[in-house]
């Protein structure tokens, strides 16, 4: 009897093994290609930061035209039943070092939960979970074309190149209306982080810095000839982040995250100093009856550079920003409005270089998904900002910049 049941078990196990993985794991590979055409009208006295100016728009008046937006290519698919690979690349068409370059490349391990404790691990190059807006494929905002200043900056300067572990007590399976989770990440290759917020301050746009690409020709960046690479290791010290997430019935999602790249501001690699950058992020997203969504987020931190007796850096910049977004969806339509404020202030070393920014911005966005593939977006943006070192370029520190973008986007998932 024992032998019979053993061989039966073995037989069933063999059947199961043969039956499950191969034939069906091959199907679920998803390739997404996205391209858009933009009609852009800009009204600004400043040159865009992408052209060596200190304007905060991606496109200044010289680009007041119809143009091709970024092209995105994305792959996401299983390597095994519980390990998924995702690779995202953008071609921004703005003379970046590589015509097309990666923004994320990550392996994610999701073991099938056997209790309410849910483990997740990510390894590779990816965004830490800071943004409450950038929820779409390619880390794009689903609410507006341009994410808030906070998440624009995350897209510009922040990437986890390392690993992350997430443990969540998920309530749904045990009849509890909320989930609570903790995340820790360890990473390197992020030492120049801070240079953009120091030199240009906050901005509002949808260009993400590629992993092997370069930053735009921001005035004051050490190597504006195109060789300045953001994602590199200078001091040999790993950084970390730690955060908590709370979710109630998927209607309220709240996140806090503490981030510290543990840079050594005294370290220099012949091209650039390591920056010591730290921030705390607080975000909440609330889904209200009637398909209304409210998102509020705040991020505050500092970044430091240069040797100093106390090791804190000879130049320290404080930065903070917050925004409130209200969005309403009706079927295939979504309308969103966002208001934000943003600031930077030099806390040490202002005599050497006084970086100081103060501003606010309004964004009105409308999106219409005509079909699963075709999408129309309109975004009106007004940024009212003062940036002290615009004087060094001989322009007024205060400026009101406006843009309207009309975007026809096509994306195809195979």
């Amino acid at each position, binding site marked *: 009897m024992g032998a019979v049941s053993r061989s039966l078990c073995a037989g069933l196990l063999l059947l199961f093994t043969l039956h499950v993985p191969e034939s069906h794991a091959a199907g679920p590979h998803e390739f997404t290609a996205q391209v858009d055409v933009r009609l852009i009208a800009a009204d600004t006295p400043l040159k865009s930061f992408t052209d060596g100016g200190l304007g905060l728009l991606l496109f200044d008046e010289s680009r007041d035209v119809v143009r091709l937006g970024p092209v995105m290519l994305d792959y996401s698919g299983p390597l095994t039943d519980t390990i998924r690979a995702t690779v995202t690349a953008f071609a921004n068409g703005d003379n970046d070092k590589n015509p097309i370059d990666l923004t994320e490349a990550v392996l994610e391990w999701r073991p*099938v939960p056997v209790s309410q404790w849910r483990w997740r691990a990510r390894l590779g190059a990816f965004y830490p979970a800071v943004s409450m807006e950038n929820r779409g494929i390619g*880390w794009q905002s*689903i609410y507006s074309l341009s994410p808030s200043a906070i998440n624009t900056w995350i897209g510009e300067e922040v990437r986890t190149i390392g690993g992350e572990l997430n443990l969540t007590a998920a309530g*749904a*399976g045990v*009849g509890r209306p909320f989930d609570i989770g903790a995340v820790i990440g360890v990473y390197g290759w992020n030492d120049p982080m801070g240079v953009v917020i120091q030199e240009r301050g906050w901005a509002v746009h949808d260009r993400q810095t590629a992993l092997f690409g370069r930053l735009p020709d921001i005035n004051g960046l050490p190597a504006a000839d195109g060789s300045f690479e953001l994602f590199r290791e200078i001091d040999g010290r790993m950084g970390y982040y730690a955060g908590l997430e709370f979710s109630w019935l*998927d209607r309220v999602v709240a996140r806090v995250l503490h981030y510290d790249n543990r840079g050594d501001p005294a370290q220099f690699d012949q091209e650039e100093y390591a920056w010591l950058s730290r921030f705390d992020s607080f975000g909440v997203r609330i889904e209200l009856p009637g398909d209304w969504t409210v998102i509020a987020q705040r991020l505050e931190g500092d970044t430091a550079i240069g040797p100093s007796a106390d090791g804190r850096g000879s130049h320290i910049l404080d930065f903070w920003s917050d925004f409130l977004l209200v969005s309403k969806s009706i*079927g295939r339509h979504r309308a969103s409005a966002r208001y934000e404020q943003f600031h930077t202030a030099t806390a040490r070393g202002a005599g050497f270089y006084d970086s100081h920014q103060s501003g606010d911005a309004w964004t009105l966005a409308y*999106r219409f*998904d005509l079909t699963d593939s075709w999408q129309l977006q309109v975004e009106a943006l007004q940024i009212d900002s003062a940036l002290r070192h615009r004087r060094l370029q001989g322009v007024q520190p205060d400026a009101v910049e406006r843009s309207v973008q009309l975007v026809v986007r096509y994306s195809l998932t195979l």
Partner: protein
Amino acid sequence: MPHFIRFSGIATVALLAWSSGQAAALHALITDRDRAPMADTVLMLVPTDPSRDAAAAPQAAPQVMDQVKLQFNPQVMVIGKGGQVAFPNSDTVAHQVYSFSTPKRFSLGLYRGLPYAPVVFDQPGLVVLGCNIHDFMLGYVYVAESPYFGKSNERGEVHVADIPAGTYALKAWGPRFKEQEAQVLQQVTLRGDETLDVTLKLDRMLSPLRNPAAKPGKLRY
């Protein structure tokens, strides 16, 4: 005492045999505290006499809980003990359906279409289903402890037919219940050839439903 029990058992069997041709029916309207109809609520009639609990549910054809637009469809299903449910995936993206609920632990490796045989549910109780790829997907299979059950429609109505005469506890469960077990609402006694009309007002506090995934837009984060 033992003698009395044996006698009562015989009497019940006799009653069952007698009433088999004269089944009763229950027509219920389920509302919340504000008298608004409650859809997707499971209603069961559980015989108060435990010796009658053994009646097995007739072997029904496998039920189908589909996956459409990143949601289980239907989201709530009630089946009898030993009932089978197939979980096809009609989406273009792959899903990975699992449950760690005590009455049925299982997991269907990543798939599209219908590669797996129906899952058999032989223990009564609530089985909560998830997708390991899409955490916001939630489905519920309630395995009824008696063969007399139904699920309310959009108007909050449940109709249960072919119920042998007898006394039953009316139990209900819905996805907005704070509990994971069906709750006794009241007792009813049914006579043969009778359709009992009841309105069941749930006096309990109900939690809101989970938020469905944001639309429009494909979500990844």
